[in-house]
């Protein structure tokens, strides 16, 4: 019953759309660039300058060189924030994980010889990072089961100049990160999205070549992202902007897709059953699903057999599970000038049905199903479309004022003062065994204060390596996992407690 209702709603929406269409069809022809889009985010990043997302490499950093036969991970373990791990050409079979900040993992390419990370179809991910300020560059990555490069909540990252071939689920997958640059990579043979930006903010994806993947580039549950100057060809679907269901961050908005070549994306879908991309029809140039405020500008979109641009919603996508907390429509879509030719020449039955419902003929460049509030387009007369006749005329013609949504300075770490550090550590750890007055597990704070009143360093040293002092109390476990500065801060804090 519910399904029938949905279909009816769609048909009704289509019917209303076509009556407005008659008026809109007489619309404006525009060759002038017009006003510039102001975007949804002011990054302050300057126009006409090389982009970067990490702080300048510090001159003091140590370089740890790894040669074939050695372990990259050992070098990462030795590296301190600010250091570079330099990997010489050769083959390396390992998972490299970076759980610290400001590490540059940099391959060296010599006369065509690259450092190759080889997963042998057994290893899970090639490179995992959770630290901030991580750079990964100049690697060939192949035959991993999971991802090529995966970020988990690392901010301020740069992933560039990598070749990622025939490896796992995603090629480059920064997740839950802020301020990241993905540029000059080549990715092919990925069974989901080659470049998958998930639940992230302020991202720039440019100058990548992605081909023969299920999805070329996917911006998902993310905000303030620009995808530009990429060569996206021979995938199942070229560039996707989605809200995927079942994730803790529920929006995608403020995305600019511009100046890309999106060509011949007709590869048969080889996505894993149940994955969100497994339902992407082969031959889709750009696919929007539930994403809002997406600008599509100056792309060359050609020879995609289903449609050049497909705008959909969750209700019309069988591959989307239900998420009651997601707004499921693609609203505020903005289609500026694009070169579109020879799309939709061998389209799906579903798209044909939409064309029929709108009484349209020919091979579709642009198709819209489901509601799409407050969307706009310019020069709509150039394309064969269904479902966009009721879009307004955009009152701007370009996005030239926006160089990037990267932050002007790297996203700052939250700063906690030294004295506050002591309080956090005392309450987070010490207070389980010590209270000011009275016995919990260890002696009361006032007793400790009497012993160490003028000797915070002595107390800081003691907690790192406690020795038994009182027969009537259990042994204190060493708190050596706290950094020396934090141990001193907690000692200082404890000695000043008065209640």
């Amino acid at each position, binding site marked *: 019953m519910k399904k029938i209702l949905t279909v009816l709603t769609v048909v009704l929406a289509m019917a209303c759309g076509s009556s407005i269409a008659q008026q809109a069809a007489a619309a404006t022809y525009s060759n002038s660039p017009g006003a510039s889009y102001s975007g949804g985010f002011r990054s302050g990043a300057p126009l006409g300058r090389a982009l970067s997302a990490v702080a300048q490499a510090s001159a003091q950093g140590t370089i740890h060189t790894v040669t074939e036969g050695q372990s990259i991970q050992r070098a990462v373990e030795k590296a301190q924030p600010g250091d570079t791990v330099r990997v010489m050409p050769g083959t390396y079979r390992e*998972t490299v*994980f970076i*759980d610290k900040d400001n590490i540059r993992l940099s391959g060296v390419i010599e006369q065509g010889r690259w450092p190759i990370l080889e997963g042998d179809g057994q290893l*899970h*991910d090639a490179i*995992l990072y*959770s*630290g*901030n300020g991580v750079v990964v560059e100049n690697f060939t990555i192949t035959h991993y*089961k*999971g991802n090529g490069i*995966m970020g*988990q*909540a*690392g901010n301020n990252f740069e992933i560039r100049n990598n070749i990622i071939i025939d490896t*796992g*689920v*995603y090629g480059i*997958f920064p997740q*839950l990160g*802020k301020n990241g640059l993905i540029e000059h990579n080549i990715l092919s043979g990925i069974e989901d999205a080659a470049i998958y930006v998930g*639940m*992230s*903010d302020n991202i720039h994806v440019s100058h990548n070549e992605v081909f023969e993947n299920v999805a070329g580039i996917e911006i998902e549950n993310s905000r303030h992202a620009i995808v530009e100057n990429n060569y996206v060809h021979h995938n199942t679907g070229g560039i996707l902007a989605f809200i*995927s*269901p*079942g*994730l*803790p*961050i529920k929006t995608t908005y403020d995305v600019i897709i511009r100046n890309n070549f999106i060509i011949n994306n007709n590869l048969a879908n080889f996505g*894993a*059953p*149940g*994955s*969100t991309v497994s339902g992407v029809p082969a031959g889709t140039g750009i696919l929007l699903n539930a994403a809002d405020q997406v600008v599509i500008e100056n792309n060359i979109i050609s020879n995609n057999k289903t449609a050049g641009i497909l705008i959909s919603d969750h209700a019309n996508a069988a*591959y989307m*599970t*239900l998420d*009651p907390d997601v707004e499921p429509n693609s609203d505020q879509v903005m289609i500026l000038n694009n070169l579109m030719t020879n799309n939709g020449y061998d389209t799906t039955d579903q798209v044909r049905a939409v064309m029929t419902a709108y009484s349209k003929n020919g091979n579709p460049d642009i198709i819209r199903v489901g509601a799409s509030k407050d969307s706009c387009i310019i020069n709509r007369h150039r394309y064969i479309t269904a479902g966009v006749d009721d879009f307004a005329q955009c009152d701007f013609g370009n996005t030239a004022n926006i160089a990037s949504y990267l932050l002007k300075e790297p*996203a700052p*770490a*939250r700063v*906690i003062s030294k004295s506050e*550090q002591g*309080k*956090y*550590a005392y*309450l*987070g*750890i010490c*207070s*389980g*065994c010590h*209270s*000011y007055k009275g016995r*919990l597990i260890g002696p009361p704070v006032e007793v400790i204060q009497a012993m160490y009143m003028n000797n915070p360093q002595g107390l800081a040293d003691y907690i790192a390596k406690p020795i038994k002092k009182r027969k009537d109390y259990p042994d204190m476990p060493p708190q*050596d*996992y706290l*950094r020396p500065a934090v141990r001193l801060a907690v000692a200082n804090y404890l000695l000043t407690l008065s*209640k």
Partner: protein
Amino acid sequence: MADSKTMLNPVLKALLLLFLLAPPLSAAQFQLSGQCPPGFDKNEQDRCILYTLYDQYDSIENAGVGGLTSSLPPRRDGFRPEQIDLGRYLFFDPILSGSRTLSCASCHHPSLGFSDGRGRSVGTGGIVLSRSAPTLWNSSFLNSFFWDAREKTLELQLQGPLYDPREMANSPAQLLASVNANAHYPALFAAAFPDGDRLASAGAVTLAQIYRAISAFESSLISLNSRYDRYAHGFHQALTSREIKGLNIFRSFVARCAECHQPPLFTNQQIAVIGTPEPEGMPLDVGAQTTYGSARLKGAFKVPSLRNIEHTAPYMHSGRFATLRDAVEFYTKGRGHAVPAGVTLDLHWHINEPNLSDLELDLLVDFLKTLTDEQFTPAIPSAVPSGLEPVGILPERAGLEQYNN
């Protein structure tokens, strides 16, 4: 901590029984602590404010999910210390149940990871319920409650078992009558809700006060200093090399555990259809289908936190898996392998076929055991104001063999 052993010690138990035979209890016996529990600092307004080492980090959109160094979701804190301590007495007092035999702790026992060691919990009169009791650790950070996510606050959640005729089987009228008639509770409530407090009442104890006190206690159960946490904050020696390998499998995109069990809470607080089997002979539980009124959510359940997971066997919403090894193995047996014939489930897209080896499953279990931290376990009161035995009748630890297939 010494108190918590009381119930396990037969000699003390006998002494306590003797003591209970000689009412009335002295008023001085019950005094609410003015100190905040561990992890909390008392501010100028006498409210307990939580401090955690994760407060030094941020997270995208402040969602409280991420990687090793991400902030936590918004928390519930700011209760008076007396409210928290009053909640502790209520939590362990069987006066809350209609039959005066069950307390909250009967299904959420501190020695059993604030769960009950059973696949499905036991309610009033020994009735076996349909779902497993979730842990209460870190409830402060949750934004929905029950396996089917049907309530959004602790206050609403606790009224579920309190008044369910199969669970604690009380009624608001009986609860109010018994608390107000008690020799100690009215004075304790007056101390916890002094004049000027939002919930202060001139005369009798109110339901809102009872709900708030229990919620205050539940919000105080903080577990964030496991060996994993020490690794996360930068002390990499805190985990063994096997455990680190397990962590890398856990967060890999092959196993994808961390895609839903996201740090730092090890849940992303979503509902997900994953298609786990029910115990033999039990019909399919439709879960959040009922909450949201959509068949597309048939079999959806809340993603539980994995903190202290080592102590809350058996696993899944109806306890089908006796061990952690069985629970992790479920995920590698194939997408939808346990969905009953004739049932269609809209499985979550992260449920796939990772083909993990036996060794990899063992390493995952090793890693999960690094999420254990019970350092802030509160003491079980040696006596509660009703004079009943604290905790009430604790369901015996269930024989797990029946689920082991």
